[in-house]
């Protein structure tokens, strides 16, 4: 496993001491209208209207920039986030689209000294929750001692009984948690909620920081912002230290691309150098967890879980479906794998435990609790229930076991003050009979912080998510975190709404910024590694199809371009026969609707632009470009962690181009042609990146094999359709060479009108032509020879045998005979037959590959239950 830290870590992080006297005067242009709400705390401004000291340097530097400079920086921010594909897939969004992550460009600044204090409280809280979990999944003395009501454990869906009594290494059940904070009107911090399950957002925080560092590099440097890289390095070192294993393997387990925060899983996995896997990639045998790879089963020692505990093992954790990793709990029980955070760690999430934390802290740690939380009452206790009933109107109620997060929509808050008399009576009755289902809290007015709105700073309520991670000895806090601004609304509701945008949080330090150091690693002997030999079978499958879709898109775009070129008259001899052949071919290849092709044939040149425009741009045209590019992008998103950010940007641009073009009110044929040329360029760039920038590992081979198979199939179809005798022979061959991107090669060689024999030789036999069929087969042969296979296998693999047949068919082909016109008929029979055979063999090759390397794709099922019986 490679421990490379891309992004933050690789950049030299040297702090520059800036001279305070060089500070430009603060111009109040940006905040002249800034008025914090009365009664609240404002992050930027003191009650007297002056800037808080730790904001002065930042504000001075910000206001030294012109409005135009700022506007440019902010639009760069938005563009970078979009280009990097930072998305948040919102379920319930009817269009199923990934929503871009919204970033407010003005960071939340936190004074270093204040942060140090906050850190103590956060670390204590992590230790406290870990201690509580250790007890609840162990002796449960907190229950027998009466420190925590047993109902909060036994009634919780997060108390996973199969994990009770299962030891964890070093007594650490929590390795990475988040705590949501808000600042009270008096300026002190308080906890809103604790996320101990599998907290989200750290990857977004990281990406946000990278973007901010690029957009405001000098500001970022001059303000002496504490860096994040060390935090992640220490965390991953601490995970390695848990394993005591010579060659530890860690994976990040994600539910897959449908997950709301899949972007972040892919991002963090790449950042930490962990393979990103889905449940189906893992298998438990002999009580050990393995990753299914192309080279066989690879043992896994640690899983960083980004999914719900309950969904992790369908055998023991009572999930309704069969999804997950059956046997995982048994592997954990046997001590063969560490899950981070430990399965069942969500038990201590939620507001209901809050009122008990001060005494739990005394009991388990022997310390006073440092960080306060909002005043909270769990209505399962008679005294709390009485208080809540007496003060109903000024409280907010929530279900006991519905944890809250500043990053998600709040589920089911109840505002008694807004209920009708009948609803209120029902609530009171329910509180009396089933108070244990409710938690009541005092609403909170969080502090406001400056947000960029319409060219100036405006105060908006802000909350902060802090991340706390294991560091080997205990816990450490990410210096910064993810701030969220809340939308406009009335004060008591603020904390119940989804945040409007996120913000970077900068912890400012007075001293030098600790630059990232890898000294700790230098003590270990350096052992070079080759990455990518443990490619998960699922990823292999997806990469192969990514190659195929990329090539298929290229083929489709070239066909469309050829068609348009003939329509616009850019090809001199627009032969109606050739055009008809082209339309037929496009129908046969599924790139054109039959009816449309007929109308285009009948309508002549005049009908082309409008009708074709539809095919090109409409999102719902079944044979159009949009679905094809959609396939490409979706497949790419499945292996996103393996693509470079440049490649991803290229893919994003492909779709953006088509969407931009679709949005144009009026379009000319020329615009469409321009778009097709752009798409061909982008696809070529993608392919170039693949050739020049990808490590030559199995992943690259699979991607390239997909391309080669697709290109060879496409060529076979083209040749079968376009090598035909008759009056239009030369024009057809010209089109063939154009579509096969071999026009220039042909011209430089032969300087004459295309002739069948020569064209077929160039595209079928000549293995020096990178667009020719033989060339594709040669590359495939190289790849197949390099694929892993069972040691005991002698001779050629099944795939290699298919390829040998393909090679043989071409080598044995008699070109002269193939290109000889068959009587007076315009078609050459022998050639289409051969091409059909080649195409069929390529299909067999693809299937054989899938069987040998991707066959993991079988679904898991639950074996039939015992239901019924015991008749009376």
């Amino acid at each position, binding site marked *: 496993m490679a421990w490379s830290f891309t992004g933050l870590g690789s950049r030299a992080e040297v702090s520059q001491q800036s001279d305070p006297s060089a500070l430009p005067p603060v111009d109040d242009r940006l905040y002249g209208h800034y008025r914090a709400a009365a009664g609240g705390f404002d992050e930027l401004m003191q009650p007297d209207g002056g800037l808080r000291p730790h904001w002065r340097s930042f504000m001075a530097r910000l206001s030294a920039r012109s409005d135009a400079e700022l506007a440019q920086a902010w639009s760069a921010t938005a563009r970078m986030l979009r280009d990097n594909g930072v998305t948040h897939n919102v379920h319930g969004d009817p269009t199923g689209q990934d929503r871009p992550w919204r970033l407010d460009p003005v960071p939340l600044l936190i004074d270093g000294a204040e942060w140090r204090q906050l850190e103590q409280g956060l670390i204590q809280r992590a230790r406290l929750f870990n201690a509580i979990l250790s007890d609840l999944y162990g002796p*449960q003395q907190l*229950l*027998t*001692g*009466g420190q925590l009501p*047993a*109902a909060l454990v*036994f*009634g919780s869906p997060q108390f996973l*009984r*199969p994990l*009770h*009594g299962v030891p964890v290494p070093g007594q650490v059940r929590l390795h990475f948690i988040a705590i949501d904070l808000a600042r009270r009107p008096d300026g002190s911090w308080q906890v809103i909620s604790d996320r101990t399950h599998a907290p989200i957002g750290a990857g977004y925080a990281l990406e946000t920081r990278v973007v901010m560092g690029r957009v405001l590099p000098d500001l970022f440097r001059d303000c002496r912002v504490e860096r994040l890289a060390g935090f992640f390095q220490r965390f991953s070192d601490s995970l390695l230290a848990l394993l005591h294993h010579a060659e530890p393997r860690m994976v990040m387990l994600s539910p897959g691309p449908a997950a709301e925060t899949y972007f972040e899983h892919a991002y963090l996995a790449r950042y930490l150098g962990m393979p990103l896997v889905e449940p189906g990639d893992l*298998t*438990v*045998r*002999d*009580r050990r967890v393995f990753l299914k790879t192309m080279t066989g089963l690879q043992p896994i020692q640690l899983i960083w879980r980004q999914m719900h505990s309950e969904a992790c093992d*369908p*055998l*023991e954790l*009572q999930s*309704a479906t*069969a999804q997950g990793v*059956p*046997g995982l709990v*048994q592997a954990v029980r046997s001590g063969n794998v560490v899950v981070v955070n430990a399965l069942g760690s969500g038990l201590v999430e939620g507001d209901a435990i809050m009122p008990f934390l001060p005494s739990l802290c005394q009991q388990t740690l022997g310390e006073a609790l440092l960080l306060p939380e909002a005043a909270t009452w769990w209505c399962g206790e008679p005294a709390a229930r009485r208080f809540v009933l007496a003060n109903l109107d000024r409280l907010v109620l929530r279900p006991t076991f519905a944890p809250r997060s500043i990053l998600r929509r709040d589920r089911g808050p109840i505002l008694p003050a807004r209920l009708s008399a009948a609803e209120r009576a029902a609530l009171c009755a329910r509180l009396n009979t089933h108070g244990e289902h409710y938690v009541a809290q005092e609403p909170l007015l969080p502090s406001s912080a400056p947000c960029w709105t319409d060219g100036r700073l405006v105060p908006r309520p802000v909350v902060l998510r802090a991340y706390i991670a294991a560091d080997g000895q205990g816990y450490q806090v990410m210096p910064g975190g993810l701030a969220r601004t809340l939308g406009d609304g009335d004060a008591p509701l603020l904390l119940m709404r989804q945040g409007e945008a996120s913000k970077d949080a900068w912890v400012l330090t007075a001293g030098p910024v600790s630059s990232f150091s890898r000294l700790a690693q230098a003590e270990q002997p350096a052992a070079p590694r080759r990455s990518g030999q443990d490619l998960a079978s699922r990823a292999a499958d997806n990469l192969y199809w990514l190659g195929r879709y990329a090539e298929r898109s290229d083929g489709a775009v070239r066909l469309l371009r050829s068609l348009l070129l003939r329509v616009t008259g850019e090809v001199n001899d627009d032969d109606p026969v050739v055009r008809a052949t082209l339309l037929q071919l496009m129908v046969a290849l599924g790139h054109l609707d039959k009816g449309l092709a007929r109308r285009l044939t009948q309508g002549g040149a005049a009908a082309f632009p409008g009708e074709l425009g539809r095919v090109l741009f409409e999102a719902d045209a079944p044979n159009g470009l949009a679905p094809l590019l959609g396939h490409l992008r979706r497949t790419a998103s499945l292996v996103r962690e393996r693509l470079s950010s440049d490649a991803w940007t290229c893919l994003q641009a492909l779709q953006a181009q088509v969407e931009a073009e679709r949005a144009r009110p009026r379009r000319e044929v020329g615009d469409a042609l321009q778009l097709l040329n752009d798409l061909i360029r982008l696809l070529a760039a993608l392919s170039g990146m693949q050739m020049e920038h990808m490590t030559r590992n199995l992943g690259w081979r699979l991607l390239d094999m997909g391309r080669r198979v697709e290109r060879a199939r496409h060529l076979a179809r083209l040749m079968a359709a376009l090598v035909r005798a008759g009056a239009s022979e030369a024009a057809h061959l010209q089109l063939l060479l154009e579509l096969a991107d071999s026009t220039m090669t042909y011209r430089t060689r032969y300087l004459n009108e295309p002739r069948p024999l020569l064209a077929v030789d160039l595209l079928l036999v000549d293995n020096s032509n990178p667009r020719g069929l033989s060339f594709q087969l040669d590359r495939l042969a190289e790849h197949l020879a390099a694929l892993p296979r069972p040691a005991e296998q002698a001779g050629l693999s099944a795939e290699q045998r298919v390829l040998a047949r393909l090679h043989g068919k071409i080598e044995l082909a008699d070109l002269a005979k193939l290109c000889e016109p068959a009587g007076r008929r315009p078609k050459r029979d022998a050639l289409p037959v051969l091409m059909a055979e080649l195409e069929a063999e390529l299909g067999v090759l693809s299937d054989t590959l899938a069987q040998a390397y991707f066959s993991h794709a*079988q679904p*898991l*099922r*639950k*074996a*039939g*239950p*015992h*239901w*019924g*019986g*015991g*008749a*009376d």
Partner: protein
Amino acid sequence: MIYEVSHRTRYAYRDPVALSHHLLHLAPRPCAHQQCRRSTLIVDPAPAVSEAGTDYFGNPTTFMIVQQRHRELQVHVRCEIEVRRPPPPAAEASIPWEEAAALVAGDCSRTMLDVYQFTFDSPFTSAGEAAAAYARPSFTPGRPLLEAARELTSRIRQDFIYDQSATDVATPVDEVLRLRRGVCQDFAHLELACLRQLGLPARYVSGYLRTYPAPGKERLVGADASHAWLSLWSPGQGWIDLDPTNDLIPGDEHITLAWGRDYGDVSPITGVILGGGEHKVEVAVDVLPLPA
């Protein structure tokens, strides 16, 4: 009473299964009223991993992994077991049900926590207010717990029709309440939902029932079945089993396999398979009384 129980489960798969994981709750749990003299488990094909353990509720379990390709899996358990239950306590001697609920909630000793944990809804017993409403007519103020529970058991027997085709493992208990139909697991879950809504601790029991051939007929081998009922905690009287399917308090004809919050905790065989396609399950249970 001494029984020899044979429980054979056969899975037939359309496509080969590459890998399967199973968790078995098939070894009778030793407890005060029953003693397992012998229990053997035969699995074919032989599992690569087969590990005996004990679950959170103290039930014996077997965890197994079959790692060889197979189209058919047989799990066969045979055991010899002795059941001697004391006669049920007098229903009218139990304390008022409200007092019982309060007593359980107010005691955090280890013993009582182990009882208290069964007062909470679990995945198969979440029926909410509907279950409480169904239970209430039997639980009149101050009524002795067991008397009320005994009546509730009878009402379920009267109000509900035993119907193998009405429900399956995915039918929620509030749906059962609406349909007024179901099988033994459904009725056990329903009564659990009712009792827990009232704050009373009750657990699910999985096991077997001795059956009798129809008059004049031979005893049919393998025609018996798995059974499910529940057990209610009555302060001072302990756990009292109740069988709503048959409207009785189990005696020596009910053999206990395991108990938990609901079916999900103690399903006789839970299995997750890779591959397999469509499959059929055949279960043959034979409860043979042995001469003492």
